[in-house]
């Protein structure tokens, strides 16, 4: 075994060092390996390896946790609201308070009476409620984005292969059908979570379909 020279000549690994290397992993896994601890005392190089690994392991276990930025929760919350998975008590609270005051209660009663005798007013209110619910579930931004993408798609759909264009049209029609069906259900049953989920999902899918169509329209292979 070569000894460490004062001028920095290399120390060659011995058979004991090799045994140490072979058994080190098992020792760190908690198994009894006297050869490791004995050799670590005798050999300053292997001793340094062992001490460093123990230190690093201890430091890793004690690593403190990091704080995420506030926008993480803001984004999560916004998505959950859009998907209708959470109900803000504040919204319900506002509606409940409003309805319990005399003037709005009286106005609502009069409106209902008028609607009974004017069928058209009732149908108009039905549609308005459906749109309101869609905005709450999906978010106005997404609805507007989808609307704009649809306009862009119609403007350039002629660039697509006719069978591909037809496929996109069919998909969009199918998704519009889903959206209408969900909106109709929610107009009658605003607490229907499955309809909320499918409404949000249909809008998201519609956005994806339009995005795919616009990308394909741009990449014609040039």
């Amino acid at each position, binding site marked *: 075994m070569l000894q460490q020279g004062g001028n920095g000549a290399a120390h060659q690994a011995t058979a004991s060092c090799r045994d140490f290397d072979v058994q080190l992993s098992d020792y760190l896994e908690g198994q009894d390996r006297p050869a490791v601890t004995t050799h670590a005392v005798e050999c300053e190089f292997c001793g340094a390896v062992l001490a460093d690994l123990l230190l690093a392991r201890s430091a890793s276990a004690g690593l403190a946790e990091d704080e995420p930025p506030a926008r993480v929760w803001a984004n999560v919350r916004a998505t959950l609201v859009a998907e209708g998975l959470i109900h803000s008590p504040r919204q319900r609270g506002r509606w409940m308070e409003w309805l319990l005051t005399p003037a709005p209660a009286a106005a609502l009663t009069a409106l209902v009476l008028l609607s009974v005798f004017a069928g058209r007013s009732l149908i108009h209110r039905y549609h308005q409620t459906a749109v309101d619910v869609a905005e709450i579930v999906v978010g106005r931004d997404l609805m507007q984005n989808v609307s704009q993408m649809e306009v862009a798609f119609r403007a350039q759909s002629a660039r697509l292969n006719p069978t591909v264009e037809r*496929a996109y049209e069919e998909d969009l029609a199918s998704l519009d059908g889903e959206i209408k069906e969900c909106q109709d259900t929610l107009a009658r049953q605003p607490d229907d979570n499955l309809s909320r989920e499918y409404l949000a999902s249909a809008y998201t*899918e519609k956005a994806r379909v339009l995005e795919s169509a616009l990308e394909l329209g741009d990449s014609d292979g040039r």
Partner: protein
Amino acid sequence: MAGRHPFQDRLIACFSLPLALLVSAAFLPAAGQGRVEKSFRAIPNCRIRISNPPGGVIVVRGWDKAEVHAVCVTNSPKVEIDSEPTPADAEAEKLEFITHVLDLQATPEEKRVSYELDVPKDSSLMISSPEGSISVERVSGDDWIDSVNSRISVTDGAGLIQVRSLNGDISLIRPVGHIDATSIMGNLTITGSQSQNIKAQTESGKITFDGDFLPIGDYLLKTYAGDISVICPSSNSFSLEARSLHGKLDNQFKLRRKAHIPYSGLDGSASAFGRNNRGDASVTVKSYSGTIHVRPRS
């Protein structure tokens, strides 16, 4: 040959040559077709991208060689294929095949390109081709496949399989890796599954799952109007949440009641919640108006 009338011999002689020419012509590019065949040395887990906007037939097969062998057939000289290995002068880590349309007035048929590739089996693939068909076999790297109308089939995929075909049917045979499959009107069929994580979603297509629910797996099968059929061994251990809002539900497993029933906030949906055996895997099957069938494999 003995036993044949001389007239028969002349008949055979008259037609055999043209017949041979006809058969061999099937393997030659038609008038205007171009055929390019190339090989590239590649690392075992090469990343391969095929971008084929005009559509066509794409076949990719995994093999044991450290090489990508590509055969590309164009229908007309109005398209061109770029193939780009990176790095250019050593075993490729990335390979791109891109179809370029040279004449925008070309008909859809003239623009079509077909690809047939043999790739190292650990390769990962990114394929984008709106029409035609896409078939991937025995590739154990990750697959991202995007299409509009293509029929897509992935067999023996072991990596992450992310597939989207808006109107085309998607068929996943013996998958092992994670699956994320989406269609709008196409049907999704998953057979012989040993995957631990599946998300399969279609709006009006059907979903058919015939495979195993692995113990720590997570499975979501969701349609809007399409029916869902789930078949698995009765020995599988899973926790099922199945709901159809306006459709029917036919569950043939005897489920044990769970401690926590999910909140539905809804009356009238057809639903089934509970555990089969220990309830290890998490299986969610839902449809807005489709019919759901869940039954043990007989």
